[in-house]
């Protein structure tokens, strides 16, 4: 599949850069033109990315739409991109949310619009690049590149009080993890050379490698640290509340919806298949940390006074679920985890937008400043309610499917974990509903709140697509799950084959048996 002679993945990755080039040439006072170009670029990119969805082959676990050309000769560094069932939806999520973000910030951002739009598009390139890279070197580049625009978004357009602190903390914290990962990448690279006599960063070839157990442990830890900081897992989550709270609305949306997924995606793409023995070894550790994240995150949410901070901490809890699902290491857990990554993108993305909208009107995010809004802003209240319920995991909405699959998978692998995780679901209901009640119901206590305007058409346009997916995944998740299927099965097989839990024959069987599974029961 190619567009104008370029392969489709490269087009999707680098089209935003083209948009940037166009914007640079425009005078900074022409806000309308700048915003228009950004929207157009994002929209075109989203439409092109839909081709991936249409042409995606469900029956294979292999990477699709691949391109592989030498980049730095003599060092085995290639420009190798491709997607599978795990990355497909993350790319779609990215292109989709970029469009939403551009519309959402149409009126929010009042100064330095040119720079803002450039950062936004640059961020899109970085995020997509992370998900399409199949070469460790390339992956690392995109992984780091993402930091720069996000750092600027928080630091320049963030809330004035602590934006610089938050931006620098975000940058340094994330960089710390990734630098150690860089060393680990190099160790794998040279280990592979010592075994195969070939220099390569190509993960498809590195997957074939059997790394000695002792080395695996260290490498796993180095990679896991980088990803755990990004996820963020307890106890590496401390940058997140600051970054989220200070970032402009759109920054928070993309940070929560896409950037955090880079961490969980990293576990799926690298830790599991590259270090299977170490993965098994660390299942208890990661699971317990995930559980602590779920429960601790939820409990901290209960006491938050700031809406945005509450949602930020809820991310810690939700991402704990994702990690728990991934490290259940079975098909339900993994698919639930991946689906929950998307769900979190939609629900939490929507929540940040919703909070951003009320902040625009009232310039405060303190829960105590609100109350009784449902009478003043009925449309807003309805949408907020749907998203809140989706975040809690009400059956019929997206959150339920993801959490249910995760709990199912966890239950199969370790009952105790599942019991504790279920506790997290209850706590989620507590903090979300209580928050909703305080903000929306009761009497209108503050005078300023009486004359708040309900959502404008633009704001509804921003939120409706998200609501659509919240229902779509909740009612009929099959189009999503079926596309993950082959890749997830292969991933599990990769882990199990390498650790010798199953013979090659049995692993092959995985692809054959059990064709219609849990998802049919939904």
């Amino acid at each position, binding site marked *: 599949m190619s567009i104008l002679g370029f392969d489709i993945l490269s087009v999707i990755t680098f089209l935003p850069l083209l948009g940037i080039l166009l914007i640079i040439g425009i005078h*900074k006072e022409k806000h309308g033109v700048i915003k228009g170009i950004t929207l157009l670029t994002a929209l075109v990119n989203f439409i092109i990315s839909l081709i991936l969805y249409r042409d995606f082959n469900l029956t294979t676990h292999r990477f699709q739409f691949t391109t592989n050309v030498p*980049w*730095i*000769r*003599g*060092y085995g560094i290639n420009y190798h991109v491709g997607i599978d069932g795990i990355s497909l939806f993350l790319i779609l999520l990215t292109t989709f949310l970029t469009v939403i973000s551009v519309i959402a910030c149409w009126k929010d951002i009042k100064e*330095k619009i040119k*720079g803002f739009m450039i950062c936004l598009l640059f961020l899109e390139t970085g995020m997509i690049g992370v998900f399409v890279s199949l070469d460790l*070197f390339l992956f*690392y*580049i995109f992984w*780091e*590149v993402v*930091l*720069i625009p996000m*750092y*600027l978004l928080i*630091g*320049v357009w963030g809330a004035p009080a602590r*934006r*610089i602190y938050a*931006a*620098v903390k975000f*940058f*340094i914290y994330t*960089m*710390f993890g990734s*630098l*150690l990962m*860089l*060393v680990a990448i*190099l*160790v794998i*690279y*040279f280990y592979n050379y010592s075994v195969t006599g070939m220099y390569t960063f190509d993960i498809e070839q590195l997957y074939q490698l059997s790394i000695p157990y002792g080395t695996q442990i260290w490498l796993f830890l180095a990679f896991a640290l980088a990803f755990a900081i990004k996820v963020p897992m307890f106890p590496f989550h401390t940058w997140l509340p600051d970054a989220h709270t200070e970032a402009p609305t759109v920054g928070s949306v993309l940070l929560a919806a896409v950037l955090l997924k880079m961490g969980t995606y990293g576990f799926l793409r690298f830790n599991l298949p590259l270090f299977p023995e170490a993965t098994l070894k660390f299942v208890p550790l990661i699971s317990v940390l995930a559980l602590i994240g779920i429960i601790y995150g939820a409990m901290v949410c209960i006491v938050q006074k700031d809406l945005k901070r509450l949602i930020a901490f809820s991310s810690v809890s939700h991402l704990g679920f994702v990690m728990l699902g991934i490290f259940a290491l079975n098909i339900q857990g993994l698919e639930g985890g991946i689906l929950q990554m998307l769900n979190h993108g939609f629900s939490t993305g929507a929540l940040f937008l919703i909070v951003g909208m009320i902040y625009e009107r009232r310039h405060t995010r303190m829960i105590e400043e609100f109350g009784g809004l449902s009478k003043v802003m009925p449309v807003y209240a309805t949408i907020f309610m749907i998203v809140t319920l989706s975040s809690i995991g009400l059956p019929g909405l997206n959150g339920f499917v993801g959490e249910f699959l995760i709990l199912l998978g966890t239950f199969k692998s370790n009952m105790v974990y599942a019991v504790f995780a279920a506790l997290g679901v209850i706590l989620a209901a507590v903090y979300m509903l209580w928050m909703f009640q305080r903000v929306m119901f009761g009497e209108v206590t503050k005078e300023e709140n009486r004359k708040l305007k309900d959502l404008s058409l633009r704001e509804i346009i921003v939120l409706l697509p998200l609501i659509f997916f919240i229902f779509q995944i909740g009612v009929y998740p099959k189009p999503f799950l079926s596309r993950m299927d082959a890749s997830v099965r292969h991933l599990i097989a990769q882990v199990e084959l390498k650790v010798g839990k199953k013979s090659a024959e049995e692993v092959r069987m995985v692809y054959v048996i059990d064709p219609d599974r849990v998802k049919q029961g939904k």
Partner: protein
Amino acid sequence: MKMMMPIVPPIVNLKSILPELVVVITALVVLLFDLALAKDKKTPLAILSLLGLAISLIFSIFMWREGVSAYAFNQLIVIDRFTLFFNALFIVASFITLLISINYLREEGINYGEYYTLVLLATVGMMLMAKANDLIMVFLGLETLSISIYVLVGFLRTNVKSNESSLKYFLLGAFSSAFLLYGIALVYGATGTTKLPDIARYIENTPHLLSNPLLLAAVGLLIVGFGFKVALVPFHMWTPDVYEGAPTSITAFMSVGVKAAAFSAFLRVFLSSFSALRADWTMILWILAVLTMTLGNVVAIIQENIKRMLAYSSIAHAGYILVAMTAGGSLATTSIIYYLMAYTLMNLGAFAVVILYGKKGEENILISDYAGAGFKYPFLSVAMTIFMFSLAGIPPLAGFVGKFYIFSAAVKQGFIWLTIIAVLNSLVAVYYYLRVTVIMYMSEPVKEVGHLPFSVSMIIALFITTFFTLHMGILPSSYLQLARESIAILM
């Protein structure tokens, strides 16, 4: 016709130093021509110097392409791709230095012809240092270079700081030259020769020599001598003061040119002559690398003056290069070459911004003076951001690729802990480079900076440095190839 005849030694010899010769002649012509020009009209001298450097660069490139490999002047000089590469690097460094000097000299009122002559002579010193095949020649090159730089550092004659730093650099420099010379004398005492290949041969063929205290002392003294010039901790004390006091253009020149020159000789002496003693000096370099990186980065954090910050950052960068030298091997040497290229361009770029933004009399030399520059001078600030991110080693810029290969080399040779210390150091470095961008983009302006003195030469310099910082980062293949071919002769 005469060229074809076999016995015409002087001509053959002259060809071997053709690039240097061009620069020397240019320097002398500039000096002469200077007399004919009025005090404020020295721009022709700059153009003449640039022209001479360009010609010399072309000769170097042609000779590199040709793959000449020969000794000359009774084996005092070696000419091969390694030396020619360094020749080209020094010429580029001094070319860009002159580009960023022109307007600066005019503004500071130090627009004298001698400036150009001295920069050119310092360049010749660097070139000879890289071409040295004999410790004596290393010393001569070093002195030619150093004496010119001593004068240049004090070129702001009426400025106390400039005078102070000139004297400081001169005294400590003379002291370190003595160390180097002492080391050379001891090498001669131990091996009976000062020729680099002969030393190597002698050491290899004389097994007991490896534990010879005389030779070990010599190696130690040489490390001190070179360590001073490249500013390794604990021989770095002069760096921040001298860098701060010197005219900014000279600071830029020193931070890249002098450093690269000292490294070129350091590399050749240690990798070719003393490679048999590797086990002895690796440990020393390991410790020096860790000290240099850590002190440079940690102290850079608290600097308020951007020149001092860049001075400490340059110390840290010497530390990274030392990591690769400790590791050894062809990948390491390739990475050093690449790193020096990248460092030269990005650091000169950063200094170009410092000069431009500093304005007359360095009135905006504090990091806090950059507040609010980000959206006021968008292109300048984007360029500065690129240089800062590149110096911090963030992809996809030249500095990242350089660091990546240095770390690769260290991991390859099994120096995992050294690599981990190095990456943690680059994390510390991120903080202070980031701070510049924080101030530029995220702080409100505190004072009126007004119109910046953009000039054509400055814009050309900024364009060259920005372009290559990006290009070397995004498409590093050809540069790495260049580095590999340049060091093939040493391996």
